[in-house]
């Protein structure tokens, strides 16, 4: 396991931090979160034309940059820090990884290059209105029809589902249950029979959609009935990425709380000089650092193909979620009244923390998943 970054990785991180500080300051985040899409083409293009980020972990054979999970997680941490509004998690983390894990060679060669370039925005539709994060919760059916399949059912909590050009869908053969009979499919965003609606989301910086499939024609991705395993691996990487993204956001909040405590004067002295503030800040640092160590361990385990990767991913996801939420609550508290106003930026990260806490499964669910992965 890798416990420190290489010089190249550290330089990559500094470069990203400068780029996002310039391209995604809070004013830009606020502008984008007020749109229905939640992101804009110009910003997305800059991210890909200048840095090639959409393809960072996609192998060069499929038009990507060919870096590993550690580099991918560095991107996520920096994006989480700057609260970058982009379809990155949907397209690169979820959809591209699912295609990499499930697709045939021909499908990967056809589908991945435009995703790696950022020309195609893709997403993964697996969760349904029941809000279950494992394959067993899938009720959408795939029925064989005229050489292909037809999908019927409802997907919800689909990241950027209303704007995606390509949707990877998890569905099951009629009558199957559990992990059996699950397959992945691809559907165009404008396919006949597919209706899409943007959900009213608590975190306006990360849009989600409700997708209804009525006899939608779909192409099989990979093998019939072979969906459960690649989806499980995709979810492991996604949890790892989300943990790193959350750590980036939590660190940013912690720093802003410290800056504010140093500036804010009450009773004739900066509130940072009160021991209650110092101890709270020390505790916040411990929380974020522990979560960061877990997130980095998860990234390293994923990069190494470590067999303990699913357990560590869940461990990191749960810890990061708890740390992010705790830090968000403390940061508002340290800001006092101003922290509860719309004009102060803290609530933007608070809402991302809340949404990320339950997205991909809440901390309790991941802790249980971790124990089971360890055979406990």
């Amino acid at each position, binding site marked *: 396991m890798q*416990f*420190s970054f290489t010089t190249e990785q550290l330089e990559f991180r500094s470069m990203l931090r400068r780029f996002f500080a310039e391209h995604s300051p809070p004013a830009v985040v606020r502008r984008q979160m007020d749109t229905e899409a939640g992101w804009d083409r110009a910003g997305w293009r800059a991210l890909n034309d200048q840095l090639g980020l959409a393809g960072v972990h996609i192998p060069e054979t499929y038009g990507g940059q060919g870096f590993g999970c550690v580099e991918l997680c560095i991107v996520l941490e920096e994006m989480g820090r700057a609260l970058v509004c982009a379809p990155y998690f949907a397209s690169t983390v979820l959809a591209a990884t699912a295609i990499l894990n499930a697709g045939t060679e021909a499908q990967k060669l056809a589908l991945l290059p435009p995703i790696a370039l950022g020309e195609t925005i893709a997403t993964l539709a697996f969760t349904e209105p029941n809000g279950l994060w494992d394959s067993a919760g899938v009720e959408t059916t795939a029925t064989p029809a005229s050489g292909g399949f037809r999908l019927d059912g409802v997907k919800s909590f689909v990241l950027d589902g209303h704007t995606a050009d390509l949707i990877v869908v998890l569905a099951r053969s009629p009558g199957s249950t559990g992990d059996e009979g699950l397959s992945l499919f691809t559907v165009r965003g404008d396919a006949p029979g597919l209706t899409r609606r943007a959900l009213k989301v608590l975190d306006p910086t990360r849009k989600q959609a409700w997708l209804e499939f009525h006899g939608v024609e779909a192409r099989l991705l990979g093998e019939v009935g072979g969906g459960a395993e690649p989806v499980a691996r995709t979810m492991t990487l996604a949890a790892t990425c989300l943990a790193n993204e959350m750590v980036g956001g939590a660190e940013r909040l912690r720093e802003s709380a*410290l800056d504010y405590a140093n500036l804010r004067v009450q009773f004739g002295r900066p509130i940072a000089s009160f021991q209650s503030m*110092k101890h709270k800040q*020390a505790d916040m640092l*411990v929380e974020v650092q522990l979560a960061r*160590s877990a997130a980095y361990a998860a990234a390293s385990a994923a990069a190494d193909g470590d067999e303990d990767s699913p357990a560590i991913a869940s461990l990191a996801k749960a810890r990061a979620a708890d740390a992010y939420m705790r830090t968000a609550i403390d940061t508002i508290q340290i800001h006092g009244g101003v922290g509860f106003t719309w004009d102060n930026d803290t609530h933007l990260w608070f809402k991302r923390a809340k949404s990320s806490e339950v997205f991909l499964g809440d901390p*309790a669910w991941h802790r249980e998943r971790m124990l089971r992965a360890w055979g406990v």
Partner: protein
Amino acid sequence: MNGAEMTMSDATEAAVRAEARAWLEANWDPDVGLIEWRNRLIDSGWGVPSWPKRWHGGDLPAAMDAVVAEEIRRIGAIGVARSGVRGLATATLLAHGSDFQKEKFLRRALTGQDNWCQLFSEPGSGSDLAGALTRAEFRDGRWVINGQKVWTTSAHHADWGLLLARTDSNVPKHEGLSYFILAIRQPGVEVRPLRQMNGHASFNQVFFTDAEAPPEHLVSEIGHGWAVATTTLMHERRGADGLAGLARASDRKGRIYDEERAELAIAMEPYRWYPQRAGRVDLVLERAKATGAIADPVVRQEIAKLLSLARSAEWTARRARAAQAQGRPPGPEGSLGKLAASHVARASAHVHTLISGAEAMLTGDDGPLDGLIAEILVSVPAGSIAGGTDEIQRNIIAERVLGMPKEPRGDNDRPFRDVPKN
């Protein structure tokens, strides 16, 4: 070359290893007595390779100590005595001691002939060590000591103590302290065991009634005691992690090994309950399975929280070590270990309670694991106090890592006699 006769520029790891190995293979003799062997080792320079040549060492880089220690283990030989407070004593004397003191004390500490204790904490000064009230007055050509120390590990086995005492109350507190080497076995020193809430008595209270020290046992100068004590404390913090490594004696047969085992048994006795103080996370899964508590979803959640906390703390320590190994400036991850360890220990005691249920009320051979679980439950509170309370740790993190304002003080700007005291 004779022993560690290498210059710094020759000191590649491979060269040092080869030299040390050659000397050990030619000279290791399990049939001599422990002290005799250690004297030979010290004479060769391989006992403390990183020390100055003038004082038993080889002037080698600090990293070579571990290399030579590996060679000593490999051949089944025994190194210099390292257990207990003697390491703090030798490090402090190397940095601040006079030639007389180095001559008199270093070798006998390394051979294990002398045992040491640390006389810093007092009933009135725990976190605030510089508030020591124990007095040293110069009378008739001797230093005369009166007062009381506490939390003194192994004082009842000690020959010498590292004493922080007040020599002037008319100057601000840090300026009125001096540092002494005090003979423990003298009529003016009384050592009494201090019984803790877990029933063990690992520490002592030490009372001084006109105890005496000769002038040549003052370390550094009068009024410079705080700077010397800071050196001792720095080495204490650095060594805290290595405690477990000291406990292992060889299981080989033979007189010299028996002597070493006896030495370690005495030195490590006070630390027997330290694993329990850290919470014994290692026992949690096994206990949960044995009791059936593993099937309870509430207990499972608490176990999972504990294990993920413990793993995260371990990874944080690994990150700190990796940064250090690469020569990167220490990040905040290096300052959090003590506080994280307190969290882990408390969480573990909580989980052990959940797992044990009603049996958590029992101790001794009526209790789970013959009282071991009970010992965990009543030992964990020590971890967040000893070696710097959690509150002091938080102050240190806030001030030194986060750069927040220092605590306002009411004791640095006036003579110590005018400072409010316990």
